[in-house]
């Protein structure tokens, strides 16, 4: 009996991985995902301890900017309303609209809007602390044989599911696809 339970546990583990893969493949989504491109901002280089990946940060990863004149941190326009109420760990939604080739943030809110203007996209993230936000799209693994490109030239193609989950799909360097996506 005990070993039958072990076999059940192993089967459960396998189904867990199969389910996860199905989720990541979008097999559980009712609607097709949206693909959008967003700008990145330079951050620390890769971390060798965790393998070869680059750290990605976006315009909507930080909520404030240092003001040289007033010598204070000032909240950015798109997060001004939400910032005072946010608590570390709280789920947030970032709303983006197209601007030229890329999508730019226009609002971060702790509430999900039921309807979005046509062409706009929203996805889920988390308020961390000290004005930082995380969306689970902060790492991009790439082969050891490649050099990390200059982050100033990098834009990222995100796959956003109808449930509001964002994943990194492709990296673009100076407008050209750097590595093929999934």
């Amino acid at each position, binding site marked *: 009996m*005990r*070993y039958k*339970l*072990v*076999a059940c*546990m*192993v089967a459960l*583990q*396998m189904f*867990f*991985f*199969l389910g*996860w*893969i199905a989720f*990541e493949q979008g097999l559980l989504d009712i609607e097709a995902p949206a693909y959008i491109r967003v700008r990145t901002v330079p951050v620390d280089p890769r971390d060798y301890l965790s*393998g070869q990946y680059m750290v990605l940060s976006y315009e909507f990863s930080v909520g404030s900017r240092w003001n040289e004149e007033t010598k204070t941190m000032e909240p950015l326009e798109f997060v001004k309303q939400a910032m005072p109420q946010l*608590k*570390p*760990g709280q789920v947030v939604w970032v709303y983006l609209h197209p601007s030229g080739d890329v999508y730019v943030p226009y609002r971060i809110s702790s509430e999900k809007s039921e309807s979005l203007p046509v062409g706009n996209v929203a996805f889920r993230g*988390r*308020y*961390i*602390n*000290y004005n*930082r936000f*995380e969306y*689970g*799209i*902060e*790492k*991009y*693994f790439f*082969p050891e*044989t490649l050099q990390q490109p200059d982050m100033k030239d990098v834009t990222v193609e995100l796959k956003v599911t109808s449930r509001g989950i964002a*994943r*990194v*799909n492709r990296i673009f360097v100076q407008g050209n696809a750097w590595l093929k996506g*999934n």
Partner: protein
Amino acid sequence: MASFHKKLEDLLGAAMEEGIVDGSARDAIISLSQARERKKGLLSLSSVLGGLGGFAVMLGVILVISSNWQQISDWMKISGFLLLLVGAHASALFMRSRGSDKHKTMDSLHFLGAGLFLAGIGLIAQIYQLSSDSGMAYGLWFVAILPLALLLRSASITLMSLVAFMLFIYINGHYEASIFRFPTPDSFTAALVFNMALAIGLVSFAIFARDKEHSMMRHLLIPGGFILFFVLYITGFYNEAYQWSGSTVTGGSYVYPAVAILFGLGGIGYGFMNMQKERYFQFLVVLSGVLGLSVIMLFLSMEKMSYTAGVAIALISWVLWFWLSFLCISYGSFQQQKGLVNIGVAGIGLGVMTRFFDLIGSMLGTGTVFILGGVVLLTLGWALEKWRRSIIARWERSSHAV
């Protein structure tokens, strides 16, 4: 040191002189011993070469796969991983169903399968570009392998579960968005208290579950003991760390240390309820002392701590350190467990050396500390010796009565 053969020959020589064995018996024993040694040597050589060969093949396969990693399709990687995961466990279960007596091989296969679960999480994260700093990967790993440890009663997977659990707590406890994150800025004390209480729980449950064959907790004595000595050693320097107390940043939580304290309390309670052998009593007293210290530290760290409190905590931890070391020697002597005696001696040696370098300063200061330390050591030694003699006397009385 004389070899086993030399010792055996000397002993048999003495036995012949006493008339216990004759010449033919002596020769037969010596030739039996030599034959066994040769067999053992061959086995050792073959097992060493086998181990090295297996390791080399494994390393080679890993390197070949790694060098072609980018060329392998994602589906191939996923299929290979699932095949390995299921294959490892299935092979062990198949061997078991056939009534195999190769328990180490079966355990190793299950252990490999349990470790592969974490590798699978890493693989999926890499393929689908997932990122998370919350430690959830380790939490999932723990949840996935703990039932295996319990069902298989496997010591190695139990230890792996402990590692997974501690990794999860540390990473999640320091993840800024976690609702259970250790309080800042004094996450150091909270983590120390968590460790202390966890170690108390592990050691208590392990000591008193030792005689219960099917209990998993008995495998946790060594890691629990290691954590206990480690945190006590670190707490010995608390006089340098007390100023981090008094959190001014909101959002931290005392959930992890509080749960660990409850676990430690459960361990102590379990110990007192199951204590059939009197010699364990002193162990329980020391463990209760460490748990008490952890509770005091947690409460004191909620407010700005005074220098005196920091020094007092450090001093108490030194006393507990030496007490525990003496107990290891005392209990090890009773039970003729060399390992435990060595741990105790090493503990005392390390304690004395550390405190010497830690406290060296002015002649007056160092001298005072040495006098106080010496008095503590003398008192502890006297108390332990008295206790040891009383137990021996009681044993002798009870054996005479029988």
